[in-house]
């Protein structure tokens, strides 16, 4: 797994790790059951404190994205496919809401916005 952290972004390092791992899980890059690097290994690789990586993993556990088994390590949760689908649906909805808002500010009706979506979909299919 690729994780890059920035010291300049102002976002706490633990939250950068959470964001990166969450993204990889939600996009399917990390499949259920995949083993994550140990807390201490990740701390060494990123040259950050053990407590920082511990905090990131605890956060991911709380979100139900990973499971930690004492003595074995941390794994991408297998029991969360419905949850992941839910998360991805929500992400899609956020983007749609944005599109609707933008459409309304342009004076388009909801029907017209939907029309645009259909059109884009057809274009996408003829291209693909």
């Amino acid at each position, binding site marked *: 797994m690729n994780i890059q952290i920035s*010291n300049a972004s102002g976002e*706490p390092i633990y939250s950068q790790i959470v964001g990166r791992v969450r993204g990889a899980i939600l996009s399917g890059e990390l499949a259920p059951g995949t083993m994550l690097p140990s807390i*201490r*290994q990740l*701390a*060494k690789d990123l040259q950050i*404190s*053990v*407590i920082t990586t511990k*905090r990131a993993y605890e956060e991911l556990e709380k979100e139900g994205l990973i499971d930690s088994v004492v003595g074995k390590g941390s794994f991408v949760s297998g029991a969360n496919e419905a949850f992941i689908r839910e998360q991805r649906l929500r992400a899609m909805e956020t983007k749609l809401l944005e599109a609707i808002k933008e459409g309304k500010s342009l004076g388009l009706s909801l029907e017209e916005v939907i029309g645009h979506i259909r059109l884009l979909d057809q274009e996408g299919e003829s291209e693909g």
Partner: protein
Amino acid sequence: MNAIEVRGLVKKYSSFALGSLDLNVRQGYVTGLVGPNGAGKSTLIKLLMGLSAAGAGEIRIFGEQMPEQEAGIKARIGFVSEENTLYEHLSIDAMRSIYAPFYKRWDAQTFRDCLNRFELSPRSRIRSLSKGMKMKLSLAFALSGGAELLIMDEPTAGLDPVFRREMLEILSGLMLDENRTILFSTHITTDLDRIADYIVFLDRGTVVFNESKEDLFDRYALIKGDKKWLDRDVRQAFVGIRETGTGFEGLARDRGEAIRMFGDGAIIETPTLEDIMYFTVRGERHRAESRA
């Protein structure tokens, strides 16, 4: 679990007093000991290592009493000091033949690996080594003795950034072993910004705080803004403030409170350890002056 426990420790010199000091250093983590020059960092380390006798108080290392059980304790400690503790006139190999018998768990292979990795030749005279190489050699001795606890007094002082990075790489590699503990004094706080788990901040012989770095960075906020906001109430929220012709910069005690107070009216940043150290010392000096 604590690797080191200090209770009521006091040491008095004619011009300086340390303590009374209470301190825990947690096993399995990197603890950074920071503070301005003369804060008592080296004094504390000397007391921990039994190189100087305390006036009062108790030191326990691995749960055992110092100095009563000093020999047993020290065989489990690797000490790396800014002051060279090796014999200058000897070769590295001759030094090893004196040093190794003191350590039951001396590992000759680890020592050879360290010398290779640090590009040191066993035949070199210690006197001929640069400051950085001597520091690497001290570290090689400490690691080969099978140290569970590394106590390092200013290990990166006077060293170039390339070597400091290498040192941090080595230290973070050591922490793969969760039984290992590192206590690391430094005034170069950027070394600790990343790898330290806990920060002990000493000033004028007392512990200002001993906290996880995560908590510190969560709690404090660095605020930059217009001086017109600085009324008496607002000033109370700061640990220390620096005012200039162009505005102010200050360390706020509580990030949440600062955000409520300033909202978009000021720049709110995560402070570095250096910011925390600077404003804390500045604030204390300021309060001491206004009391006087």
